[in-house]
């Protein structure tokens, strides 16, 4: 089980004092937060991609490479990379490059974005959102798994004899997650490839995501990548903590009430009841998130949104101390208890390489059987 952070990189005025970080301060704060994540023992830092104010993260691979150079073990990911409006050839190259520089500590989450005008700004039509996500990823997958690619599609220039460089590290592409909040097409796509499925989970009631993840698990099994319980699931979460529950509520309320996404809407109490947002003592956060697998099954990755809505960097870093020192160690134990042995751990480059080697050895030793053809890595590297 992997624990980490995901950030949307918003520049929001702190409602308690009216101050606003500059873009420069916010960008540097992302680096400080990522380094802190490693320091307090978290596993993953995932960065969003946006092309409009008030967000600063338009270029995640640049930022993640800079973070990779200053960290040792932190796995770097995205939340999300726009598979719709980016050229899949450039995604293939950028993330393979990052993978080499970071010695494999990289995976990537595909998403369609949440800002309509981004499509026309990048020469695309928002009505093609799903077809773009499907076709562009099909090309990206091919570029990572085949050396020389001939390809023709609807949305970009055809390719003849093209090789994306550099090749993925150890010939094992970054693990791919597909993020979606409501589209069964994307759950279907993730299941088809045997990729991971990430449910943002933080803004809507869990019942919605339980259905979507249940659907993904069923289809993962249908496509022969393993049992439904072995599908690779990631979830978002959101917490704010203080030793005393009421202090956390008092401190967080002005940020909640003025937050860009849900501010000026439901009360903090209603939102906590209806979504996974947990504001309270570390124990309350532990209890809430330890219970997630009751609803979603045993899963592989839990990411928390901790730095948004104008929270000062100092506060965010204090929150990460609590998360890393008091919450996550307990959650690791809770999630390990009674976890079936055949449920995979969170994906890492080393594990994917080991699996590839094992599969190649098995393929050499034995004639091909139905069983090893259903293996995740064998399936996508065919």
């Amino acid at each position: 089980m992997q624990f980490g952070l995901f950030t949307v990189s918003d520049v929001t005025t702190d409602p308690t004092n009216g101050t606003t970080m500059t873009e420069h301060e916010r960008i540097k704060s992302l680096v400080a937060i990522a380094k802190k994540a490693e320091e307090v023992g978290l596993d993953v830092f995932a960065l969003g991609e946006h092309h409009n104010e008030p967000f600063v993260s338009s270029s995640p691979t640049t930022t993640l490479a800079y973070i990779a150079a200053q960290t040792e073990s932190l796995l770097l990911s995205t939340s999300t990379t726009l598979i719709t409006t980016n050229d899949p050839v450039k995604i293939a190259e950028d993330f393979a490059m990052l993978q080499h520089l970071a010695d494999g500590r990289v995976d990537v989450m595909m998403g369609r974005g949440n800002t309509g005008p981004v499509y026309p700004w990048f020469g695309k039509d928002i009505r093609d959102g799903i077809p773009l996500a499907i076709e562009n990823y099909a090309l990206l997958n091919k570029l990572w798994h085949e050396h020389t690619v001939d390809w023709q599609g609807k949305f970009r220039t055809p390719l003849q004899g093209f090789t994306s460089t550099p090749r993925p590290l150890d010939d094992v592409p970054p693990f791919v997650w597909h993020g979606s909040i409501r589209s069964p097409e994307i759950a279907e796509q993730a299941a088809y490839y045997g990729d991971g499925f990430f449910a943002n989970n933080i803004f809507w009631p869990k019942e919605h995501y339980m259905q979507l993840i249940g659907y993904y698990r069923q289809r993962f099994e249908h496509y022969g990548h393993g049992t439904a319980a072995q599908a690779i699931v990631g979830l978002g979460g959101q917490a704010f903590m203080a030793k005393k529950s009421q202090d956390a509520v008092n401190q967080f309320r002005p940020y909640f009430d003025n937050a860009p996404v849900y501010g000026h809407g439901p009360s903090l109490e209603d939102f906590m009841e209806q979504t996974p947002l947990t504001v309270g003592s570390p124990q309350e956060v532990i209890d809430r998130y330890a219970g997630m697998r009751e609803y979603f099954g045993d899963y592989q990755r839990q990411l928390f949104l901790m730095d948004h809505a104008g929270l000062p960097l100092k506060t965010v870093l204090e929150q990460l101390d609590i998360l890393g020192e008091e919450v996550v160690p307990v959650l690791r134990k809770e999630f390990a208890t009674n976890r079936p042995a055949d449920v995979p751990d969170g994906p890492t480059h080393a594990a994917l390489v080991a699996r590839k080697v094992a599969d190649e050895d098995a393929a050499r030793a034995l004639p091909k059987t139905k069983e090893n053809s259903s293996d995740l890595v064998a399936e996508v590297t065919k």
Partner: protein
Amino acid sequence: MTGFDVETPSFSAGKKLVVVSAGLSQPSSTRLLADRLTEATTDRLRESGPSAESAGSARSGESAATEVDIRIIELRDLAHDITNNLLTGFAAPKLQAAIDAVTNADGLIAVTPIFTTSYSGLFKSFIDVIDTTALTDLPVLIAATGGTERHSLALDYAMRPLFTYLHAVVVPTSVYAASADWGSAEGSTLPDRIGRAAGELAALVRVSDRSGRVGDPFALPSGFSPVGGFGAQ
């Protein structure tokens, strides 16, 4: 004046008639009109026609008595949840139950006050948080209240196109009640209009199978392929 429950937790086996009332004051004339329409429609559905003894006539949808479950939704009670849904993108449980009721109904009676030449903002906001495909085929009776009869055409230039866009089936007679309609016993055509509209709605509700349908939220569009339809394979 009626015994209808505002919140009916679950339906039995009958046809499902849902009433949406967007009146803001309590008591409201909008609710008064909604109750009159509900009563008239229910009476039409429950009454047995001349050939009710023939089991086959039920299938013709003309004259057998039809069991009916009624659910009345006062939008005033949901006003905060509706605003929150517009802001957050999801419905709180009470609002979700109301949306589900409308979505799975065999018939809808929609009544709004006319504000500034059109349906009220609260009424439109409620419609806006319902999926645009959810009301397809839904039989709808549209009705409105207002201070003077001068605004009665708002039903035909605002309400009717709204439901037409949503592919609902709006009955030909719409019912507008001006303040004066409530005070003129003799010579008022309001009861006639209520009766005619109720008859039109009841005829459609009798034959609707909407409440018995099972929706698949994960149905993929026909022709969908997880690798796309082009040279990508």
